[in-house]
């Protein structure tokens, strides 16, 4: 076994150990720190699978944004009266363990018996890549080849936002959520936010821009931008907007709306829903990506901020 193989094996064991800890830990916070570390490790695993685009997404969402969501949720839950639910009885837990082991073994057996060489859509993607004008095949898949999936995924994000907001008590409807933030402004945190946020915005936009040809894209860049808005709110440099704010609503739907318009116009100009006219394929993809980035950057922090918790003004 060479050095790289040893690294891979160590990494896999590490991921499993920390996942096991996250499941088994007694305290909520210990489990959540475990999960944050797990997200970090996973992004390294993805990098090792040559899925750099996925690694970026996992690093931004799994490690960063989800960590804030979980830690602040745990803090609010700590306040709740924690009458421990008794754990299921031992036989029940053994049955659960047996079932889980069975699922894992079945999945493992399937993986070991996968056909060799594996089926692949890569040649097809490579053949049609030139038609889209972009160089990053993943961006081409997301925005052009399987645009319907991506559009529906954006709609799912919108549904999640609607679901979260609909949990607000009546008297707060139209008011603003309270994003996770410091109890009062702290010098060091203000400093960090003021310094990191502008850099992060540049990095986020850079990721979207190079995403046309190199690893990167709307999801990765949007997640970084979302994180930057979150850190600004955490440092109390800005506040979560009221959920009724027209600009917020516009930003949330901008991505799917532009995507849908592009798709519908394809039905008129190119004869098929979502068929992008080849001459304009690249600029169209970039425009769709830009609006998607905006929507993602606004949706993720609003999901973390939760339902409105203040009466509208």
């Amino acid at each position, binding site marked *: 076994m*060479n*050095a790289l193989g040893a*690294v891979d094996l*160590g*990494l896999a064991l*590490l991921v499993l150990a*920390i996942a096991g*800890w996250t499941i088994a830990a007694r305290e909520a*916070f*210990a489990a959540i*720190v*475990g999960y*944050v*570390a797990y997200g*970090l*490790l996973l*992004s*390294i695993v993805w*990098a090792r699978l*040559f899925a*750099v*685009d996925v*690694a*970026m997404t996992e*690093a*931004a969402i799994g*490690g*960063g*944004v989800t*960590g*804030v969501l979980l*830690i*602040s949720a*745990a*803090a609010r839950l700590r*306040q709740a009266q924690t009458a421990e639910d008794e754990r299921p009885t031992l036989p029940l837990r053994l049955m659960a363990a047996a079932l889980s082991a069975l699922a894992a073994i079945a999945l493992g057996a399937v993986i070991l018996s996968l056909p060799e060489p594996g089926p692949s859509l890569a040649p097809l993607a490579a053949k049609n890549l030139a038609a889209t004008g972009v160089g990053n095949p993943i961006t081409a898949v997301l925005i052009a080849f399987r645009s319907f999936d991506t559009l529906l995924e954006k709609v799912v994000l919108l549904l999640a936002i609607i679901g979260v907001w609909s949990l607000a008590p009546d008297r*707060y409807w139209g008011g603003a959520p*309270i994003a*996770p*933030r*410091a*109890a009062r402004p*702290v010098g060091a*945190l203000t400093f*960090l936010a003021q310094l*990191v946020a502008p*850099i992060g915005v540049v*990095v986020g936009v850079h990721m979207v821009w190079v995403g046309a040809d190199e*690893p*990167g894209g709307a999801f990765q860049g949007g997640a*970084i931008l979302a*994180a*930057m808005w979150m*850190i600004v709110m*955490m*440092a109390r440099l800005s506040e979560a907007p009221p959920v009724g704010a027209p600009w917020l609503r516009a930003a949330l739907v901008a991505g799917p709306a532009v995507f849908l318009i592009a798709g519908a116009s394809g039905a008129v100009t190119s004869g098929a829903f979502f068929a992008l006219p080849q001459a304009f394929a690249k600029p169209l993809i970039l425009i769709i990506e830009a609006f998607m980035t905006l929507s993602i950057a606004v949706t993720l922090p609003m999901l973390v901020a939760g339902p409105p*918790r*203040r*009466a509208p*003004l």
Partner: protein
Amino acid sequence: MTEFLLAAAGLILFTVAVGLARVLRGPGDADRLMAAQLLGTGGVAALLIVAAATGARGLEDVALGLALLAAFASVAFVNSGAPPERDDAPEAASK
């Protein structure tokens, strides 16, 4: 040289992984967080080294993303230590 770099990346990852024992042992939440912080730095280092060794494109950008978000968990943790905000706190509603 490549072998050396990969071995170095592996060793660093292994080292910080041993540090994760602090997540298990605690005793305080701050200690657990420190271990995660150490893992973040070690992950950045390992990614950069592997990027240099294998020449894979874009790995530096993953490291860049990790570096940008390195303080996130700590900030959220410190914020969550404060007493929770009540809904509709008067000072918050004024803005």
